[in-house]
């Protein structure tokens, strides 16, 4: 017996309805509105000290010549000129973008797939869920060490497995060539980060009312349609938040894995802008240039965030 064709329009409505539900229809009194911020005020003091002031200080230094132990003379935008016109800048930007896109895509995909799998009831689910936290729980230094060892050309277990499984005759230099090195590093980074996606998506899945699924099934929707019209819209906020955060993190903060495994090599083909900022600051003592790089990263991330949020929430804006 064929099920009735699912009412796709009605399903789409569900997704839209959920979004509009997050817009409130009444207001709180002005006084009440201030209360959470009284609560938050001391935290803002901490944020200012640890984040905002140092950022302002970095901005300040970026307008001065490199000086260790004391601020150099004022040079205006010279450091920015130096960074933007340098040999390394186009290469470093390209690698950072590749690195970020790869990470975000695979973390989201793997995180979502895993969350969907773990949301189902199957024997041993508790254990499976606990196991998925392992990459996240492993400290970056430990992960870097063990993956570096697994990738080893002479003694690494991955090469051994590849040869024993008959998948190749010669050994693979996972970290010894490009783009191999970038692919290997991205794999390690995704491996380390996707449990966060899993956990956040799992949390998001909890907030989707099960009666939506019931209604959809009554209408005859199969698992794919349910996924497309109920689950994904329901996970919209989580997805937007995760995409934003992971992009910002991977672009402007990811350091330890690359540093431990290749430190930007071979021949600078895994050198992201974060690695470059480390080299400029701590190896070459160029604090002014490093700060300029930091500001450039901030501006790019900010531009991306504004553009992305505008795009992601455009329906809310236009929906009135």
């Amino acid at each position, binding site marked *: 017996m064929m099920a009735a064709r699912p009412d796709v329009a009605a399903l789409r409505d569900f997704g839209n309805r959920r979004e509009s539900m997050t817009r409130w229809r009444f207001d709180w009194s002005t006084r009440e509105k201030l209360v959470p911020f009284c609560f938050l005020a001391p935290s803002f003091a901490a944020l200012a000290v640890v984040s905002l002031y140092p950022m302002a200080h970095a901005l300040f230094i970026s307008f001065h010549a490199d000086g260790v*132990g004391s601020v150099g003379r004022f040079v205006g935008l010279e450091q920015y000129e130096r960074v933007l016109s340098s*040999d390394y800048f186009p290469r470093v930007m390209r690698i950072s973008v590749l690195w970020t896109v790869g990470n975000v895509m695979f973390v989201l995909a793997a995180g979502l797939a895993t969350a969907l799998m773990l949301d189902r009831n199957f024997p041993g689910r508790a254990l499976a869920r606990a196991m998925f936290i392992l990459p996240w729980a492993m400290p970056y230094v430990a992960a870097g060490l063990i993956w570096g060892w697994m990738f080893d050309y002479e003694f690494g277990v991955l090469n051994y497995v590849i040869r024993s499984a008959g998948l190749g005759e010669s050994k693979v230099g996972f970290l010894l060539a*490009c783009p191999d090195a970038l692919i290997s590093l991205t794999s390690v980074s995704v491996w380390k980060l996707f449990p966060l996606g899993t956990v956040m998506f799992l949390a998001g899945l909890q907030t989707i009312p099960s009666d939506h699924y019931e209604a959809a099934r009554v209408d005859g929707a199969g698992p794919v349609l349910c996924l497309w019209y109920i689950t994904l819209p329901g996970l919209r906020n989580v997805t937007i938040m995760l995409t934003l955060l992971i992009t910002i993190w991977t672009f402007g903060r990811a350091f330890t894995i690359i540093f431990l495994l*290749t430190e930007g*090599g*071979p021949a600078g083909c895994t050198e992201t802008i974060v690695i470059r900022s480390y080299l400029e600051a*701590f*190896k*070459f*003592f160029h604090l002014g240039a490093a700060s300029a790089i930091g500001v450039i990263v901030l501006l790019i991330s900010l531009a991306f965030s504004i553009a992305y949020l505008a795009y992601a929430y455009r329906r809310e804006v236009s929906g009135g």
Partner: protein
Amino acid sequence: MKTVLSRVAVAAALLSSLALPDPARAADITWPSHQWGEANNAPVMLELKRRFEQENPGNTVQNITVPQAVFFDKQFADIAAGNPADVATMYDPDIRAYIEADLLEPLDAYYAAAGIAIDTLIPTRTLAQKDGKIYGVPFQINARALFINERLLNEAGLQPPRTFDEFQAAVRKMRQPDKVQFGYATVSKPGNAAVFYIEIAPIVAGFGGGFFKDGKPNATAPETVAAMKFIKSLHDQELIPRGMEINAYRQLFIEGKVGMYATGAFFAASVANGNKDTFAHLNAIPLPLPRGKTTAITVFLGVPKAAKNKDLAARLLIRMLEDDIQTRIVTVGKTVPGRVGMIPESFVADNKWFKAFEQAALTATSYAPQGAEQYGAEIAKIVVEHIEGMLFSGLSADEAAQRLQKALDAFIASKRKT
């Protein structure tokens, strides 16, 4: 009980961290170093601390162990934040960079007061000198010689190589892929540029080449290119363990799977601690490369200008140059100290491998780029990038040398401008 104690400790730490600074009293010299954690150096440094505290009652030396992986970054952060320790530890390019940035205190008065003539120091002391003043004390010089595992040599029926041809033959003969055994090991993994540079420096010098000569880029000199060709051949012919980082192939040597390895004398202590069999067969010879020259790292200690206890710290460092500590650097630290002629004959007789290092220290040059040492870190990065291109991207040695020369020229030109 332990939890209560640690909680009290945390609370105390909390409170003490907010406490006002102590009023002025007898000085407490802060000496953070990764070397407090080194099995060969720590006892020497502790003895220096002990004797100094005895001779200067009321003053203490705080030995702060910092993990090697973070030490140099932390030292830089301390200096950049205007809160340096009293003693700074620096290798060749670092001390030059710090001197150029005017961050160190001149120590001439202290040398004079102790009656130590500066020309009784090892030749690489010139790195610590500028405009007639000296800004550091050489703690030890780690010249590179060739450690050999005599067991592996004997098994291959070889004598310790004395010429370049014998060396190449030995490298080839001791390479046994099925046992994953190698004749030689050197760096072959992209990673820390400074370490990479340090490891290839003796090879380049051994061919009579150098990436810099008298402050000018020298990458396309025939000797330098010959050295690069040799490094590339070792790598391409899989004669060295590929893709291993330095601590890993050092461990490989300790485990007796590498026949020869060029590094400083300090390594013997690691071998002794790691594998009795390898240590029993350990010997060292001068690095048998065509021109017979080698490089060295000199560990300098200095006093930052903004340090809180400059006078006492300077006296502590000069104290290290007295005979008792100098001899200890040899007998306990198993490396060559800062003053010439301090190595006891008896020690060399008991440790036959040490002779090669004693010899090497007399003629070794600094591994930092000659004439441009203060730019050592940046130059190392440029050089290593191109060497990596040669090893991992299939460039020929000539091609890599050409590109490297261009890059170094551009780099030096940019420095002249500012």
